């Protein structure tokens, strides 16, 4: 299960990057094309923050999703899955770092 969470989590994250990169640079279809744009670390950090709010479920998102007349349940599920996996990985990371907060 640990491995499943690890592998699927990474793939979901990279897929989210692909979608986000395509949104910012519509001509980019792949990671190589995205890399050819030579985005700076600042741009990538901005994108990562954007990804966290748009591709990972959080309390506001869930509330908003429930209020919508037409719900995209597949997207909701994937976002929730992403959230669970990242929480699991955060827990693992905190244990290894000794971060008890």
């Amino acid at each position, binding site marked *: *299960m*640990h491995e*499943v*969470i690890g*592998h*699927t989590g*990474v*793939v*979901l*994250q*990279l897929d*989210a*990057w692909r979608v986000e990169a395509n949104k910012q640079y519509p001509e980019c279809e792949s*990671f*190589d094309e*995205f*890399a*050819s744009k*030579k985005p700076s*670390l600042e741009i*990538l*950090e901005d994108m*990562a*923050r954007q*990804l*966290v*709010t748009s591709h*990972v479920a*959080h309390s506001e998102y869930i509330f908003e999703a429930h209020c919508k007349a037409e719900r995209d349940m*597949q997207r909701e*599920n*994937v976002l929730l*899955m992403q959230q*669970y*996996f*990242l*929480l*699991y*990985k*955060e*827990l*693992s*990371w905190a*244990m*290894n*770092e*000794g*971060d*008890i*907060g």
Partner: protein
Amino acid sequence: MFPPSPVNDITVNLEQILASLLVHLTPHVHHWAFTTVSHKLAESVLELSRAEYGWHFSAIRMSAQQLTDFRLGELAQDMERTMPELWQLLDILLSANRKPGAHATEGDGEDNEMEFGGGDDEGIGRQFKEGGKSDRHSSIINIVCLFFVHSTLLGYLRLEIQKKVVILSIMLHSTNQKCNAFECIVGIFLHSCNTPERVINALSQMGISISLSAIHRAIRSLSHETHRTMQEMGQTLVVAYAYDNFDIDFKTHVPTVENVKDTLTHLTSGCMIKLDGVKQEDLCCSTYLWRQSQLNPMIPAHLRPPNRSFLDILNLHPEPQSHLFASGLTRCQQWMAYKFLADLVKYEPPYFHQFHALLQCPEPIDQIPVKRMNYVPVRAMDINQSKVSGNIQAITELLQQGSIEDPSEESDDSIVDISDYVVLFHGDLGTAERVQTLMEHQAIEATPWQCFQFVIFVMGLFHLKMACADAVWCILIEPRQARDDPTSLMHFVSLNRP
């Protein structure tokens, strides 16, 4: 004038003279050369077998330190240094079908480059890597794991070096019975693997292991040492105890009507962990905690503190407003953003790798230093800890092994009274529930010891992680409906592992 003395020319033309002697008097020259070389090699073996080199172990006085300090790599280096000719000879003899020239360059080069105890991690060596760091109070199993990591019966050194060390160790042991470091380590390894006595006897006759009785003496010596260490550690009170169950299937050879019952035996094992950076007085808070405990029957109901739940934990570290205003993300989300970025840098095109060094780890919230603790495994206990009564027994016996007993019964003044102190216990989540129940049961008893007032249970984080993985499984895989959709986790897994 006389020509230069012919005696002087002998050294110059020595090779020619020997070559011509070899042609004309082969058997004699062979015999002479063989005797000379044999003596020289025998002297080198005798030299290394002396006590000064430190390869003499005494089974009766065997200590854990000796075992942890043993490095096969060092033994190999000593051998190569003290008996270089024999070492080279074995190189040749171990691969007699190889061409001498090729062997010398190839083999020597690789041997010289090899770093003992480091390098590649393949095979079983990798499995033992975690348990392989030096630790004075490791269990026998850990010592053996350590032996593997640093030594290599299975992993790090090349096979040929292992073979040479084994052959030369047999020679050393045969020359001097006291020069038995390698044999001792092998003997204890065999014992820890439950090797049948017949096999040990055979190996000991071959000279690879010490004898069965010597192994038993060594194990007794190690057990005494562990017992002393446990008592010393227990008396400091700065010790946490961890315990868990393990099962052994004792199969009967001849099943009869009387013994058809379950052959699985439930036992309890545990260990004592020395708390680092904690003083004895830090743990002297049992009475204070009991005065505020939900379980204390002496506190009137209306004065009892409110029930705590996981929601209280959420408020332990509130989000600082400054963080929220700076990026609009919570700390958890900031970590997620870091993770997104780290995975992109790690897995995607080489262009992104350049950012690896620039990535900043999220700021820890409340970090405690990660250290390797000293620990001693306790004696396995014939207790089934799947019941509350079993946990009472297990806790009492664990403390007993640390020389801590009921202060009301204890007559010896030298034993520390634990009444005012707390003791940390670790275990899995099931154990946590049973310990909670046992404390509820015992709360009405008269003395702090009988109330188990000193028990502070801290769940093992590994089990917490297992519970989290289990939760993910329950949500995303177990329900049948959760597996139907093409965006379900099960579908992703089937793509990953078709």
